[in-house]
């Protein structure tokens, strides 16, 4: 009966995909949702690709998945993936079914699937990943993710013990995931240890998870990412199997050490969060047996996806657009910090970081703004900040509480045409920070700025 249900689900899902494509719509989620609605165990019934890789964690899933796809595709594989779709159960099911025959046989040998942490219990019990990489576990959307204990519990409850897990050794919360798994590989970054602990409004771990004693930080990069030790019981951040030993920003390279081996790669982006992502991806690929040379070559051709980061020169204007994932205080804090260090001694920031859906016939919870670190906005190179969106008054209050000079702040309730507030005669270094769901609007504002740059107005 269940098998019959599976075939009905497969037929309905494939038909819906055809229909969606005929309508010019994206078929990366709805077919999967239809399939798992008709047959709860739909993913379980599908034959899985020979190698199943899952990517999870609070931040860095998409970047890591894209890197893995790029390297594996460059090596000649056809890779099943959900990089243009949803990372919840429906998206995972859609990616697998659209790359399967009608009988459920996989078309590709390898799948790289980004899996939202909250979907773990709906995904892993139905498919055992061969490899699971988790970049980090930290506070995220308050509404969905609650806190790191909850997310760790979900992942630990769902991941099968046969999976080889690739974990961030410098994330003492994430490093403890999956105690049931024997096969563990740790990665981290030893290069560029911070001279001081960066300011952050809150951290997700303070006490030893083993004995409850106070953890002592050797150093911290941001939030709880760094190296820790418990003075009471000796518990400490695990040793790294793969470690970034050098980041040469001038040469645009970074070096990864594994045992006695040292290999250099193109530094695709110098944001520290991405250096972690790169190292994690390399660790996983090496564990799969992908040769270093293949990885190095693929990195040469890799860029961050334009939807997440782009830089355009338009006349005198230098326009940089950077994703700032809304309701995710750590991600946006990192974007603020990164932007403060970016080129330009008189920068103008256009910030579109409110939640889009939550402000339609609703009022976005602003709790996350109070975990967000606004202090990088005090950087003297930032001369103007334009907060666009319904919560602009809340941003002003939070900025005031963080000591930001309010005379530098301009606000508008409207996102549409907010770039008109940028004084392009005064500012040449313009940074457009945007929430994921505002991508189309951010691209439209970017286009307006480019036109003004090219025309010199």
């Amino acid at each position, binding site marked *: 009966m269940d098998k019959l249900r599976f075939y009905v689900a497969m037929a309905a899902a494939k038909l819906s995909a055809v229909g969606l494509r005929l309508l010019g719509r994206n078929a990366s989620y709805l077919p999967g949702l239809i399939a798992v609605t008709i047959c709860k165990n739909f993913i379980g019934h599908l034959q899985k690709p020979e190698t199943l890789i899952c990517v999870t964690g609070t931040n860095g899933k998409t970047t890591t998945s894209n890197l893995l796809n790029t390297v594996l595709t460059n090596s000649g594989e056809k890779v099943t993936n959900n990089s243009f779709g949803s990372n919840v159960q429906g998206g995972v099911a859609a990616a697998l079914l659209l790359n399967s025959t009608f009988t459920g046989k996989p078309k590709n040998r390898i799948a790289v699937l980004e899996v939202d942490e909250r979907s773990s219990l709906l995904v892993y019990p139905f498919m055992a990943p061969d490899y699971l990489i988790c970049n980090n576990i930290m506070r995220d959307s308050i509404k969905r993710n609650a806190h790191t204990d909850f997310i760790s519990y979900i992942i630990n409850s769902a991941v099968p013990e046969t999976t080889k897990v690739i974990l961030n050794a410098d994330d003492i919360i994430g490093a403890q995931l999956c105690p049931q798994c024997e096969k563990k590989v740790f990665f981290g970054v030893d290069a560029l240890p911070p001279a001081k602990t960066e300011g952050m409004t809150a951290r997700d771990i303070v006490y030893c998870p083993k004995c409850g004693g106070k953890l002592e930080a050797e150093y911290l990069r941001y939030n709880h990412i760094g190296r820790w030790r418990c003075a009471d019981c000796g518990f400490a951040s695990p040793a790294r199997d793969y470690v970034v030993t050098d980041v040469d920003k001038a040469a645009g390279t970074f070096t990864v050490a594994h045992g006695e081996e040292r290999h250099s790669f193109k530094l695709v982006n110098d944001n520290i969060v991405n250096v972690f992502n790169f190292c994690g991806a390399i660790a996983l690929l090496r564990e799969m047996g992908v040769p270093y040379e293949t990885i190095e070559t693929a990195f040469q051709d890799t860029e961050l996806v334009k939807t997440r980061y782009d830089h355009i020169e338009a006349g005198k204007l230098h326009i940089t657009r950077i994703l700032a994932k809304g309701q995710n205080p750590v991600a946006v804090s990192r974007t603020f910090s990164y932007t403060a260090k970016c080129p330009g001694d008189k920068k103008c920031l256009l910030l579109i970081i409110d939640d889009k859906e939550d402000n339609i*016939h609703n*009022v976005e919870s*602003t709790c996350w703004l109070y975990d967000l670190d606004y202090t990088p906005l005090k950087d003297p190179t930032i001369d103007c900040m334009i907060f666009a969106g319904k919560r602009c008054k809340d941003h002003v209050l939070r900025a005031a509480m963080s000591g930001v000079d309010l005379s530098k702040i301009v606000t508008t309730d409207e996102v549409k045409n907010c770039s008109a507030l940028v004084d392009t005669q005064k500012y040449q270094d313009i940074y457009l920070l945007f929430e994921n769901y505002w991508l189309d609007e951010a691209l439209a504002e970017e286009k307006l700025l480019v036109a003004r740059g090219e025309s010199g107005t």
Partner: protein
Amino acid sequence: MTIEVLFAEVCNLCGDAQNAAYLKQTLPDAEVIDTSLPDRPFFADHTPDMIYMGNMSERIQRRVVETLRPYRDRLQELIDGGTVMLFTGNAWEVLTKHISYVTEKIELDGLGLLDLTVKTDWFDRYNGKVLGRCGDIDVIGFRSQFSMVHGDNSQCAFLKVERGIGVNPESKYEGVRVNNLFGTAVLGPILPNNPLFTEYLISLTGTQAQAAFREQAMAAYEQRLKEFRDPKTEF
């Protein structure tokens, strides 16, 4: 003025750390005592003007209950004596009689200072907003929680709810107020989001103060109040 902030290193989920920060900015001359979990609380031997504790994970909540258990009678004495206390998110649940952690299958007696019980379920999360009145002040807030409080708080509620739910979906009474103890499920920035309530809370200590960044805080508060009262706004 002495303000004791309890366990800020761990009771800081959902932006709650910024309530204490806002109090410090509103009362720059106040002595703020940060008590960590291993420390003996300041209130054990002294009478602070105000005690604040914020939202936390369930694991930390259990540790906080055990940390405060030896001081249960002293807390009762301070509540009876009118010390101002503000416990936000799930912090005030430690004062109840009993907490059931359904997912983790753990039963725990609370401090028993409030005749209420708590049920916490990791697979039943509530996200919402609340608009209610504390005296003649409109208080607005956001809620995200795994727990619901049960029992009759109608005679000792923090807020009479105008929109949203009370301590549970069947209740229209949110939180508790016992003398100057305020317990509320409202999260994170309850103080900066409610400058009038902040000023009222401080006035209960016998000090008059204008909320920090009052102009900016009032502008955000008035806009949100208007939005919360808009019938189109979903709760």
